[in-house]
């Protein structure tokens, strides 16, 4: 099916595409086999979002093709470890360092000889030949809000402007097609002290749609997707029609002035009405073994939900996992855990289960090649343990993991020094990372948006450099 499209001239494809979108909004598509067919007209009909971006660029701006090559990633899952995960207890352990640096956890070998991960990441370590890690991320911002803004947008925060996050940029560029929202946060988007809206200077409708509750809870359901007591689809449909009629009466009265249509009401209705789209949130459909494989905690079940959303064509999902601000008691917080804890505990094993299961599942359905998976937080942790057996904020060097979606597999990029204090080779800034993520997603990082007051702002900062080694 893909080939058929490739033979079309580009502009023609743009026209066809527009018709498809219009069509998709009228018809409900049926799907039987999980993982093979995607909701959201584009991908269901064999046209990737990457193509769509390119078409949009050409059709809208008349710009020339950029030199970034054919992007592979159509969607992205960002696993956000809120609070700042310790690089020393995850992807960059220092087994040779003195105890106060090495910390309480051991390290283990990975699939790549000579590279070691934390002992709590055995499954991830075993698949290092299929994923990629940057060990030389560096930033000057060691405060949660600031660091979060920098990592989530590629821009250092300024009081003048909030920049948009990855999902909002994607959402703005792809025009919010399909029944499911195109930028979704699981369970919510309260990141880095929750001052970030996610949409920055872009319109508020590009903000992440929060599913609003924890997928690991027994009664998990997205707020307001299920009928209010006593209502059913027929009545909602009738209500929607009544609203339409009322708006039409008024429109007729006003002789077709301002439009009276209510696209958000239609979107909401379509989502409520689409059992198929809503099935994305039905984690119970997954076999018990699968649910177990991801780990039964919040992070695992959130990743499972993210996979189901991406399978249905959602371009951007943020899995927001809280509790990584581990100022004390590393062993409990990061490794052991216990039932009924008040803070998140046993964090790294949770991550290991969730991440390995996600990568494996995406590989099996063939989606990994077009799904970019990113694991990061706002900074790393101090090389020396503090007096409470924890580590404090440390932005000077930290690690980020990437996989799938056109990322070079098995690459360990850059390194930190002997104690994990500073980058030793190939320092990478969050701006560089942003330019790389956008490039992988088929978005020219130098493309500009205009803010409300007319200021042109490029998607990633001008000085950002794409990390070419990372792009396969």
């Amino acid at each position, binding site marked *: 099916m893909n080939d058929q499209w490739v033979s079309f001239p580009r502009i023609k494809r743009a026209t066809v595409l527009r018709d498809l979108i219009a069509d998709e909004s009228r018809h409900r598509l049926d799907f039987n086999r999980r993982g093979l067919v995607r909701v959201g007209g584009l991908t269901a009909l064999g046209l990737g979002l990457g193509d769509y971006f390119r078409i949009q660029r050409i059709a809208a701006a008349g710009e020339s093709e950029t030199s970034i090559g054919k992007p592979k990633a159509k969607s992205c899952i960002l696993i956000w470890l809120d609070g700042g995960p310790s690089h020393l207890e995850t992807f960059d352990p220092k087994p040779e360092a003195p105890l106060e640096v090495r910390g309480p956890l051991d390290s283990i070998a990975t699939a790549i000889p000579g590279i070691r991960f934390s002992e709590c990441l055995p499954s991830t370590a075993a698949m290092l030949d299929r994923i990629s890690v940057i060990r030389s991320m560096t930033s000057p911002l060691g405060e949660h809000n600031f660091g979060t803004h920098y990592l989530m947008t590629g821009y250092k925060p300024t009081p003048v402007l909030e920049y948009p996050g990855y999902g909002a940029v994607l959402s703005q560029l792809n025009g919010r097609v399909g029944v499911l929202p195109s930028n979704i946060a699981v369970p919510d988007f309260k990141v880095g002290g929750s001052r970030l809206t996610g949409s920055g200077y872009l319109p508020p409708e590009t903000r992440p749609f929060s599913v609003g509750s924890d997928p690991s809870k027994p009664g998990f359901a997205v707020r*307001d997707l299920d009928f*209010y007591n006593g209502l059913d689809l027929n009545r909602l449909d009738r209500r929607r029609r009544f609203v339409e*009629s009322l708006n039409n009466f*008024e429109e007729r009265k*006003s*002789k077709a002035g301002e439009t009276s249509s209510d696209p*958000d009401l239609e979107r909401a*209705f379509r989502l409520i009405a689409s059992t198929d789209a809503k099935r994305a949130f039905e984690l119970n459909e997954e076999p018990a073994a699968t649910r177990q494989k991801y780990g039964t905690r919040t992070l695992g079940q959130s990743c499972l939900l993210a996979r189901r959303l991406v399978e249905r064509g959602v371009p951007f999902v943020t899995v927001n996992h809280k509790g990584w601000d581990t100022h004390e008691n590393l062993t409990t917080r990061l490794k052991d855990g216990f039932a009924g804890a008040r803070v998140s505990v046993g964090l790294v094993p949770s991550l290991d289960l969730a991440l390995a299961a996600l990568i494996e599942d995406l590989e099996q359905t063939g989606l990994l090649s077009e799904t970019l998976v990113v694991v990061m937080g706002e900074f790393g942790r101090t090389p020396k343990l503090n007096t409470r057996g924890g580590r404090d904020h440390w932005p000077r060097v930290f690690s980020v993991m990437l996989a799938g979606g056109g990322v070079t597999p098995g690459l360990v990029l850059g390194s930190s020094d002997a104690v994990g204090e500073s980058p030793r080779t190939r320092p990478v800034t969050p701006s560089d990372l942003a330019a790389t993520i956008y490039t992988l997603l088929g978005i020219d990082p130098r493309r500009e948006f205009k803010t409300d*007051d*007319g200021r042109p702002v490029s998607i990633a900062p001008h000085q950002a450099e794409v990390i070419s080694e990372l792009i396969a």
Partner: protein
Amino acid sequence: MFICWVLLAAVLPGKSDSLVDFDHDVMPVLTKAGCNVGACHGAAIGRGGFKLSLYGSNPAADYRTIALELKGRRVNLLEPEQSLVIMKPTEAMEHEGGVRIDPGSDSAETVIRWIREGALRSHDGSRPVFKSLEISPASVVADDFDQDVTLKAIAHFSDGSSRDVTRLTVFTPEDPGALSIDSKTADVHVRRRGRHIVIARYLRAVKAIEIIAPFSRQVSAEPVDAPDSFIDTSVNRLLKKIGIPASGQLDDEAFLRRASLDLTGRLPDGQDLRWFLADDERIRRTNLIDRLLASEAFTEYWTLKLAKLLRIHGKPGNERGAEKYHRWLEQQIAENAGYHTIAMSLLTATGDTEQVGPANFYRMVGGPREQAEFTSELFMGSRLRCANCHDHPLDHWTQDDYHGLAAIFAKVRQEPIVRVVDDGQVINPRTGKNAVARIPGERYLDDDHGALQAFARWMVSEDNPYFAKAIVNRLWKSMMGRGLVEPADDLRSTNPATHPDLLQELARDFAEHGYDLRHTLKKIATSDAYGRRSEVSGGNATGGQYYSRHLRKPLEPEVLADAISDVLEIPEIYGQYPAGSRAVKLINPQVESQTLDVLGRCAREESCETSVAAGNTGGLSLKLHLFNGPILNQRIASPKGRLSRLIAAGETNEAIVQSFYRAALSRSVSDDERKFWNEQINGSGDQRRALLEDFVWSLLTCQEFVTNH
């Protein structure tokens, strides 16, 4: 003057032989070529190791950078053509920014000649200083749509001389889709009808030029002269000039709804309607406005409006202070205190914030710089923020202005007990030293101790060109749906008002009448411009921003929440507030309320004007919540309330529909609508109830209900 030129001409054989001046000739070339914009060398850290001041705001620094830095390797005095500063922009050498200056062009020649002549800052110690920029014409009505307009830029200097600098001036259209400008000739080609703005920049001067391409030349507009209303005179004049017909006047019942919502944040009830209709037709509207302005509901609603502007919210531990503040404000509104008096109290109040309401003014944001930004946005409608890091590129604010104002607030302890102290400084990053207290755009204040008082006095004085304009623009926006200047907190010469004369006159009239908020609101509410229908008529679909018709406004979250409660006759519960509390009266903007959350209220921790959450702009979550959440469903299904009451009273479907139309839309059901509802609502018992519930739900969701129009 003529003789002077002749003499000069005699001394200097030809213009091209006059010496090139760095400030007046080279700098504009760099600006025109875009070298010093924020995305290139004008960035705070420069680019490629070469940093210029943003838009050339600092010629001295730029001269040092170009001529002296790196031991002068950017200029080659022996072979000027080989200088880095010319080889890069002409791309004789690799240049990331590409070709900015064409080789062999006048611009290139200017730079090369400047180097050949010694690359000096100036050739004459007593060189005249650039004073002002004049663009002619300053305002154009392009009668013929296809006709090009040629702009001319004249620079005036301190010695009285002037010079044509058109070639060196950068002209930028505000909307590139509407105008195209030839950068060499300054010919403006109009591509779209309407009112357009061109920004002209030469050295540090920026000017806005208005270019109008009328929609139609023959407009049967209303009489232009409106002797009893300067508002209508101004609005009608522009409509005529721009060629847009005006919509007619709204009918009385619709006017009642509009004015009630705008002035009191409430839907009119049956009593209001009876009083209104009982009045003589000729004075009905004026009497209504007077009645609304005098009502308690006005005080409640406008306290909320100002509380949002002042960002009144209780930080943890200061809830009592916030309440005191709110009550104080309410009292000012109730007593109709002049806005200048209110502002003076806010700026100068000190003491225990739990005792002294207005002292909480200094508790709403943290830090002197934040206080400077907040205060200038609030009382001057000006965004000083850019000037924190560099001189404002589109306005005259400098870093000295910004940090000078912050220096005034550095003397205020923003603590539970607000007091003015002697110590407290901020650093001006430009000088690296303590900033000197300064009234922005005006003068330095030598007496540190009295700086705050001096600033406050200046703020409310008639010398301050911003104070009255900033608030009347907001009052206008609140009533008319759009500020004469948009955004309302961005007053500057390069963002001109749609009706500059009207803004001026409203401000003058406001000051003349004791800064009386009610006075100006009444002026607006009784104008023809306010009373126009919101429906499009005679092809004025595109002219909304010129008030050819009334602009629709979404109801504010608090107003909408109250309106829903009023229509359903069941109050909403807000946190710990007693049952029956109205949303507009809530003091705590962050009180627990899912309803206000989904309707998009402002938490007031930041500006509510720029906050994206302001206004119920819809959104998927809101619509999902309307369908399936409790906000409407819970109370519609309740055995109490209007619907159940009417059903229990044995009312007919038609009577029920009529009652809800009256309550929600403040009008009778039309014949078409009556027919439609008769067809739709046909059933008995539970089925009838369900149909009626669906009717009520749709009524509370439709555009006519959720907007003021």
